[in-house]
């Protein structure tokens, strides 16, 4: 629907047993916008993101994607409307090879049924090209299992994958926590390019300075609720840090 915001969540609640992880959350992200999600450990950021991408279905609340109400029963549903996620725990299968992980759930195929099969050479190539762009130049082969990669390399793989398939919304949960300064800068650059290309981006990060540098808006969460939403140009990074630390009055 033209004019409608890309993704809007209203009054969303999700509990695990009697633990209320997020409650009454109102959240929106538009095309061409980077929204930062900050808050203490356990504030509910990852849970909110997992509701957005269909990993959990909310107990209550409404979500509208592109103006249409949506209900995701699985991450597959969310992926199919164009929500691509880099999970905090990365969602990689250690025993599977790099290229099989890269294309997991989105395999390229050739031939006709019943002989339709994986287009392996093509997938290997695309994987290598994307990983090189993310700065992984020392990889020997896309056939190596993911469990030989370092933490930073795995993160780069997960980001490269989301970037490659990037639909209309990119969701990143602590994408740079294991990356070097140089690689972090590459991720920021990739995020900006995605935004400038018209994608919506949601990014969780504990580094307030980093969030303040790249985000257009910042949403601060506390104990499962949205405490505040600020525009980047309205506040200093210090002010955001204070709010996260609970020094509201300052």
């Amino acid at each position: 629907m033209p004019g409608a915001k890309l993704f809007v969540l209203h009054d969303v609640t999700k509990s695990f047993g009697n633990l209320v992880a997020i409650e009454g959350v109102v959240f929106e992200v538009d095309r061409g916008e980077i929204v930062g999600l900050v808050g203490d450990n356990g504030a509910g950021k990852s849970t909110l993101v997992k509701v957005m991408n269909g990993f959990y279905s909310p107990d209550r609340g409404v979500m509208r994607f592109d103006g249409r109400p949506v209900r995701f029963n699985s991450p597959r549903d969310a992926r199919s409307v164009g929500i691509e996620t880099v999970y905090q725990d990365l969602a990689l299968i250690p025993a599977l090879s790099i290229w099989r992980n890269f294309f997991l759930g989105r395999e390229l195929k050739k031939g006709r049924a019943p002989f339709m099969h994986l287009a392996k050479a093509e997938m290997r190539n695309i994987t290598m090209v994307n990983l090189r762009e993310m700065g992984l130049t020392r990889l020997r082969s896309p056939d190596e299992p993911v469990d030989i990669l370092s933490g930073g390399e795995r993160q780069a793989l997960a980001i490269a994958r989301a970037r490659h398939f990037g639909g209309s919304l990119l969701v990143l949960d602590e994408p740079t926590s294991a990356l070097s300064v140089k690689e972090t800068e590459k991720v920021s650059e990739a995020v900006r390019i995605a935004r400038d290309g018209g994608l919506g981006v949601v990014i969780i990060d504990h580094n307030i300075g980093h969030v303040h540098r790249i985000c257009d808006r910042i949403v601060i969460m506390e104990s499962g609720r949205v405490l505040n939403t600020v525009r980047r140009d309205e506040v200093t990074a210090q002010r955001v840090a204070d709010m996260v630390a609970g020094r509201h009055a300052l």
Partner: protein
Amino acid sequence: MEGVTSQGTGAVTEPGATRSVGRSSLVSMLARVFAVQELGVLAAGLVIGSVFAFLSPEFLTMASAGSILASAVQFGIVGVGVTVLMIAGEFDLSVASVYSLCPLVMAWLWIDHGVNVFLSLTLALALAASIGAINGLATLLLNIPSFIITLATGLFWAGVSLNLTGGYPISYFGTSPVMSWLGAAEMGSSKISVSIFWLVAIVVILASVLRMTATGNWVFACGGDGRAARAMGVPVAVVKLGCFILSSVLAAFTGIVQFGSFGSATPTQGSDLALTALVVAVVGGGSLMGGRGSIVGALLAAIVLGMSYTGLVLSGVSTTWFQSFVGFLLLFAVIMNLRMERLGARFGVIRKS
């Protein structure tokens, strides 16, 4: 069989090995050998085969081959089904009961109640599919480990088998072509049953699906890390359910092929098959943790078990020692699998995935 990406000398970590040409081509040849995932079970097979060939002159005859392959069919078909399920991260201990129940149901319908033979066969397989679906749904919906669920359902269906005919076998004395196709017929003048074709066909299809299709990729992903697979959009529950059904149907089919080959369905037959099938999967390179395993490896493991059984008979040792032998084999093959993998890693081997 897995191939290998040749890494030349660059990947070799040993100093000195990178210098000399002769050494490096030897290393790359070794690397190729170690890239074969099924090396452990192959080695075990060669050792056991040589020992029996030495102990008994009859071991290398056609009659012996017929007997080896007949056992391999039995261990193999049920074994590859369990292997696929194990790769997906689940177990099926009910295969032994399904293996005896389903041919019994087929024989009961067809021979005792005059139902059309094809219909009886179809109903028996449909029963197996339902049993597999129940196993899968119970595991996934109740969130109880499949090890326990299938132990329980296996016990239940074993009781159903015993009560269906009051414990008696049902025998067939006719010459139905269906029985010939299933396994009664032998190839030419050899002693080799046509049932080997069923095993080969099932192995070829499953090995191709696992390695060459998206579905196969999903099976490995489900067992490797179910949560991550779901996060990437893999319909984990559907994939696992399919694997439960496959394992159950293949167990039933194994029983039906046995019925075809020997003309008799017995309520108590194959009671140790559940563990033997696990042995086949693990000796073939599978991991109890899921996410790893090989259909070709399972086939080789089934042949090695067949060789062991026949070898014990021919060399005059009682088959009552078979299980002890399988115990040794299991340990030997698992140790070999691990050793080979480490050696491979040392040589910088990358298996084509």
